[in-house]
Structures are given as C-alpha cells and as structure tokens.
C-alpha cells in the first residue's frame, strides 16, 4: 500500500495562492465573507500563511502553504468521539460528514489549524461541480458537495482523483495529482508515494534538506517542506 505524501518547495513557492483557489474550485469549498473572516469562520482546505521575522531593513517574510498534513499519528483521529475522522489504509485522513456530530474536538486538537466548521448551510454556487466523484467502494461515495450545517471538513489530498486514477491504472504523482499540485504555476508542489524510493517526492527528500511543521509533537505529518 502506498503512503501518499506531499513535498512543498518553499524556494519555488511564490505565494500566489493558486493552490488555495484551485482547491476551492475542485472541491466546491464554500467561500467566505467579510463577517465570516472577522469571526474566523471561513473554511479553507488549503491556505498560504506569511511568517514575518526581523526588523527593517533586515526583514524576512516566508510564505508557507498549508494543506492538511495527513499525520500518521493524527490528533484529530484520536480525539474524534464519533469515528467521523479516520485514516485510510493509504494514510489519507478523511472526514466523513455522515458520522460527524459537529463537536469540533478535532478542530481544537489539530495543531495545524487546517479544519473548518460549517457554521451555516452553505450556498450552492453555479460553478460548483454538479458531477459526483468516483465511487469509493470501501467507504461509500465522497461526501461533497453534500456538506451540511454542523459538520467539520478538511483537505482530502483529493482522494477522489487518486482512487479514480488507480482504478484506471494511472501513475499517481505523475498522471494524477491533487488539484493544488496541478494548479501550482511554479511547480513548487510534488505529490506521490513516500514509500516508493523512485517517486519524485522521495527523490526530492533525498536530495534536499526538509522539515515538517511542529515535528516535536510527533504527529508525523506527511507534508514535507524544502527549505526556502
């Protein structure tokens, strides 16, 4: 079984946020409003944060794209009382809307702030994809866009693409990648099997220095960053 992971090259990332927009486009993630941003009630499966250091004129700002880390030891999975959040065999951490009871324990537990809560019934937009995603025989259909008020949602590594791609015999990480990877104009993002020594992600990790966010928490994230 593959172990899917992502490598993000912070030297190539230009902070353009194409990943953030493409993710919303792909997964019909609702957009926010000024009020919701003020209340921190927006939902992003991927966002780009800016971390500033230093004082004028030796200032330094680093842009860090943040999808779900799909931790190997994921606090969200541990704390979920309803087993709505679980880890698939391939390591992708999934949120099942139908089991979610909206307690938001996972949101508190996640060290990366990548989970969003549906505080309201979301508007269906004309550009939301009306087609249903590929079947996941093991767990039923994908949960979108049937999100409802009161459930938590998050990045899926675009598992619908991976599952479909595997079924069609395509090479994951080459022919099929998550929407954020596909949209990145600087090609800062790479996706693939961390256990496959020949994959591009493994090659990058072998040749460049990398780090993961908040490694000290032993969550073992599967999103790696190459130094900027």
């Amino acid at each position, binding site marked *: 079984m593959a172990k899917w992971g992502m490598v993000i*090259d912070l*030297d*190539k990332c*230009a*902070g*353009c*946020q*194409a990943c*953030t*927009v*493409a993710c919303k*486009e*792909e997964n019909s993630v609702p*957009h*926010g*409003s*000024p009020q919701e*941003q003020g209340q921190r009630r*927006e939902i992003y499966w991927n*966002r*780009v944060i*800016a971390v*500033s250091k230093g*004082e*004028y004129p030796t*200032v*330094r*700002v*680093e*842009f860090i794209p943040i999808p779900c880390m799909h931790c190997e030891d994921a606090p969200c999975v541990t704390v979920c009382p309803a087993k709505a959040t679980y880890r698939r065999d391939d390591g992708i951490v999934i949120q099942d*809307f*139908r*089991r979610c009871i909206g307690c938001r324990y996972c949101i508190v537990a996640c060290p990366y702030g990548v989970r969003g809560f549906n505080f309201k019934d979301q508007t269906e*937009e*004309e*550009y*939301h*994809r*009306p*087609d*249903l*995603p*590929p*079947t996941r025989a093991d767990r*039923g*259909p994908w949960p979108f866009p*049937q999100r409802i008020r009161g459930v938590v949602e998050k990045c899926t590594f675009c598992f*619908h*693409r991976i599952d*479909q*791609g595997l*079924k*069609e015999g395509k090479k994951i990480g080459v*022919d*099929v990648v998550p929407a954020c990877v*596909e*949209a990145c*104009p*600087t*090609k800062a993002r790479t996706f693939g099997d961390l256990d496959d020594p020949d994959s591009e992600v493994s090659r990058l990790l072998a040749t460049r220095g990398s780090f993961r966010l908040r490694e000290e928490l032993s969550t073992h994230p599967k999103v790696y960053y190459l130094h900027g």
Partner: protein
Amino acid sequence: MSVSNSDLSSSKGRKGSRSSVTRRTFLKVSALTGAAVAASRIIKYPEISPLASAQASTEGVITEKWINTSCLNCPTRCATQVRVVNGKAVKILGNPLSEVSEGEICPRGHIGLQVLYDPGRVSGPLKRTNPVKGRGVDPDWIPISWSQALGEVSARLKSLRDKAQPHKLLLLHGLNTISNEDMIHRFADAYGTPNVISGDALENEAEKSGRWMADGNYSHVAYDFGQTNYLLSFGASIIESEKPLARNLRMWGKIRRERPTRAKVVVIDPRYSVTAAKADQWIPINPGTDGALAMAIANVIISEGLYDAEFVRNWTSGFDEYKELALNYYSPEKMATVTGIDADITRQIAREFAQTKPAIAWIGRGVAGWPNGSYNSYAIFCLNALVGSIDAPGGVIYQEDPKYRDMPEPVEDDAAKGGKAKPRLDFRKTSLFPSAEVVTNQVADSILNGDPYSVEMAIGFNSNFNMSAPGTWRWDEALKKVPYYVHIAPFISEMAEYADIILPASTFLEEWAYDHSPPGSGFAEAKLKQPVVEPLHDTRGITDIIFEIAGRLGGTAAQSFDGIGGDAQGFVRYRTGTIVPWQEFREKGIWVGPAYQYHKYDHIFNTPSKKFEFYSGNLEKALKKTGQVGGRLACLPHYKEAEFLGDRGGYPLVLSTYQPLLNIENGNQNYPWAQEIFLVMHGVGWTNFVEINSQTARFLGIRDRDTVWVESPFNRIKVRARVIEGIHPQVVSIAYGQGHYADGRWQKGIGVNPNEIIGVSYDQLSGQSSLFNTRVKVYRA
C-alpha cells in the same frame, strides 16, 4: 466543428445515513472531438471512466466537455481549458499547449468562474432616467431592448457625424481582447475620431518610452527570464503584478530549482513586495531615485572595466558621452546620499550584475510611474546593454506578435478625414508629451477645460478611469460634463454610473476573440477565445456590438466593416485565417509561432544609428519636432530629481501603491475567491490598509489596526493602518483593488482607493501618470 458523443458512463451508489436517498448517476460525456482528445492526452485530471459504468444506472445525465479558450482577468491573457458540466463552467486550468505560460495559469485564471457567474452582472441594456449625474446619485436605470439601445446610440453618433464633428466622439477603453481593441480602433478610423484612449498611460508607458530612447521600440520590454542567472529588479513586482504574470511565476520556479544553476534575484524597492520576500536580497531605496542607482551601477561597471566591450563597440553608439557622464557625476558614494543605499552595496550589486552572465535589469512599474519615469527606465535599460544582455539568451529579447491577416483600409469620407485631422484630446506627441502614444489621465482635464474642443459623446469599453486614474475626482466631474455617455461592460462599475446607456457586454468566457500576451516570451503565440457557455444574460460581445452600430450608421462607416467576417466569430476566423486553420485553432485554442532567434542585431534597433543608443537620437528628433531645446543631457540617460506633490513639511510621507496579485484587472473586484485572500503578505482579505513602517508609526503614535486618515494636499481617506517592518520609513503604501462604491455585494464599501488622494502629474516625455510622487500625512482618526 464536428461533435461526437462518446457515451462514457459511470455511476455511484450513494447510501446516506442522514438522507436515505440513493443517488445514481449516469455520466454521458459529450465532447468536442479534438478538444476532448487533446485534453485527455495532456491533462492530469481523473477522467470519467468507462470502467465505472459497470455499476452504472440512470439517474441524472451529466454531460462534460473541455473547451480550449483564454483568460482576460489581466492583460497576460493566458490560454486556458474550461471544464463545462451540464452547460455550466466548473473548472479552469491552463492549456498545456501554451508555451508562453507553459500550461500554467495564476489564481486570477481560476477566478474566471466568478467573473462569469458574478451576481452583479448586467442582464440587459439599461437606460438612465435620472438626468442628474454624480457620485452616489442613483441613475434610476430602466431596462430597454437591444434594438432601442442601439437605435439611440446610433442616432446620437449619426447626428454628431452629420454636424461634421466626429472628432468630438471620445472612445475610452480598459482591458479588452486584442480583437475587440482592433475593432474599436477601426471604428474610430471609419467614424472619424482621433480620440481613442486606452488605460495604458496609467501603467507602464514610461518603461516603453525609456526603452524607445535606447533601441527605438516603443513597447514593453521582454525578458528571457527563464535562462537568466542574475535578476536585478528595479521596483518590479515580478511575481505579483508584472506581465506576463503566469509565465513569470512558471519561470520563477524554473530559475530557482529546475536548473543546475540557481539564479540570484535582487529586488530594489521601497516596499518589501512579495517578489522582494522571495528574492535573495531586498534593498530598500529612497522613493523615486532608481535612476540615480542605475547610473551609479553604470559608474562601477565602466570604471572597473566590467562591461561587455565587444557588444558596446559593435552595436552601440554614444557610449563615450554616457561613460563620461557616469564617471564624472555618478559615483556610488555621491549617489548614496540620493538613494540611501551604501556605496558598498551599490558596488556589490554592480559587480555581481556585470560578472554573472547572463543578467537582467528589469524596469518595474515602481520606477516608471514617476515624473522622471522615462529617464529612470532609460538608465536601467542601458545597464542591460552594458553587460551585453541585448537579444541574448537570458537577457532582453524582442517580442514577436502573431501576424493577423491585414484588413483592407477603412473607407473614409470627408467627415472622417476632417475629424481625424483634428488635434487629439490627450495632447500626445506635442510639446507637452513629445514621445507619448497615449496620455490617459490628461483626457479628464481636456474634457473639463473644453480644450482643444468639447466632447459631445463618449463610449467606454470596459474602462473604469473613475477608479483607476489618479485624481479620481476629475473623472467624476468630466463624466458629468459629457452630454452623452455610453458604457459597455459586463457589470456596473463606478464609471458606468455616469452612463446614459449601458450596453451589457458578454464576459470573455462567452465571446469570440483572438488574443496574445504582452512581451515576455519572445516567440509569438495567438490565443482563441470561444464561448464555453451560452451567454448567461441578454448580452453581446463588443465586436458584435460594433458591427451592429457600424451597420446602423450606414455609408462609409458601414462599408469599412464589410468583408471582414460579418460578426465576431467570422471576424476572428478572418483575422487568424492566415496563421492557423480554423478547425485546428478551435481544437487547440492556441497557435504557437516559430522558436525565438537571438542576436538579430542588424534589424532590432529602430534608431538613427541602427544601433543601441546611449545618446538617444530618437528623443533628440522628437524634441526638435515639438519645438523644444533639450541640450545634450536631455538625450542621455541620467538621474533627474523627481518632483513631489505636496511639501515635505506638511506632508512628510510619500504615498506608494501596489497591485496585489488578487487585484483582478478588469475594473471589478466582486469576486469572493479573490477578496478573501486579497493580501497574502498580511494574511487577510476583504480589505486594504495603509502600510506603515513600525518606527514611523511609533513616532506618529499609530498602532497596528488603528483607523487613520491619510491626507494629501488634494483629499483624504480613512483606512486602517498596518504597522510593518517591510517598508521604507518615509513611505506608506496602499494596495489597489478596493474602494469600490458603485455596485457589487462582494466589493462595495470595502477598503479604500488610493487614487482618491493621489494628485495629477506626468512623466513629461511619455505622458505616463505619476503614481508614486504624492506626499501625505497620516494621523489617527
């Protein structure tokens, strides 16, 4: 176009614990043959597979197609692929066949979906019933039919022409497709007005003019950025707003980590831009002094003998005079007091720039939008020649554009000839603006002063100068004064509020057009726009509107539009027929020209000497022609102190502006995806700030997020302060893109527009509006 339906079906069983509905789907993919084949071969997208149809069943038919078209959310006009499901556009990606953007698009491309489905779009022609015009005055729109609207517009046009005053028609245009621009210009010629005014002089005209002084080509500079090893950016926000943006982003990835050598990037800018943040070195400079730094760099390169002697000897003229000037007046030590940059740092970047080959000195918007913008640009451009980076791999290159089929000359009657012989409203190529191709902002004052004559009618094509031009209040007054104004755009902008008639234009995803990107790639690439969906509303494309109006005018105006295709689709087909077969163009959405050839020194220099000129013969001629005596210095690259608006005592800070990447450039910002992540540097959206250095803020008693007034000698605006480290202490900055007040749920009343307080002044050669030389004071509200 042949259409084949391949029935690829798929379904899923859905068992919901919350809802007991079992949903089944039968997917039927109908696709344009070529486009679909091309798409499946090249995109990394999970396709709907026949395999899944094993469990297929029949509820809900889904049709899917991919259509190759292109973007118009900024002037880069990237080639795109749009996924259309059940007649709705649901996804936009870059077209992998595009070599300009190498298959990529920036976030603006994806936001095309929200441009198409913008709830603020105009759904049919509107007529004003309130004769009073002004900011905040409700025009009391009533819907009218296209036939009535076009009838009224044509009657007005006709009567003006019958009075032998066609020159009193003013055509204004913002961001349009190249084909729509070509039609607008043709209409002006056929009708007989010399007054076609683009928004270009609000952007980078001084860059063009500075470059023209050196090599005689009045156009933006193309940089062969993917192959360079050293990038020296003068005020260029290369990965935020410089065009062609998606190509710049792609090349950024390339020069950082996709080649054996990682290019070094140095950014000179009073503001710590996103580009500066991603660069290897940020050098804050005193505002408006980039020309001085460029000359100091030249001083170091020449005095240390680091220049490309062979190129200078063979392909340049005027070097001795330039050398003497640089050596005698521009030592790094002397210029340090002007630029605020240590002589040691100037020496360091000069040596690196000359010794790392190939290298590029990039003229940004930040150095062009100044009263000395042309000279800044000229001085910077000359650095490229000093190190031999002219028409060389990794240096400056010479853009080729698609050669569309020539149109027959428009038919001109006496009225048209008479009208076009009149002086232009913007005074281009006069003693006021000797090298100018357009002087956008001058037109408001020309209207207000009735000089050189009154304007009787104006038509705006996607223009919004009431927002985008410095000194916005003048455009408000000017538009009030124009007796009859017709606005053509998909949505109601601030400028549209002054219209007597609004003709709703289709968006770029619903119309036919041809397009190409601004300079950057070198080689030519034509892009098609074809409708991806039926028009959502009762709208028409601009080309179709012009054909219709010309037909209604009759006579020579109508004759001028005969034989060029008849309608928008026909026009695009006619014009592109000489470069690419129609069927192929529709399938691929793109045509790519031959590979770029370097070192064409025998025919790229359009100067009197047919060489690169360190002493500008072109400028000397232009000055003479407009009756000015400049002296030798006027024709040499040099640093001329910028004039500021407002005295330093009363207004101690300099107001700078910038375009964040998510500022959509169609004159509208009603797009939630862009709004919610508007300022990546500050991690917020739905707003903008006055950005102020922490030391300055402390001195002024301003804390982060305080509400403050930013006051210039002309006006003041209230905005929240963002106290940051990444800005020159004497500069404050406000992002463009907000401050809309006319319409739009997702933009109205959000943030401020810095143009409301920026004064009016120009680069006196190119007519470029000065954007960065207004002084302000900032105090707590």
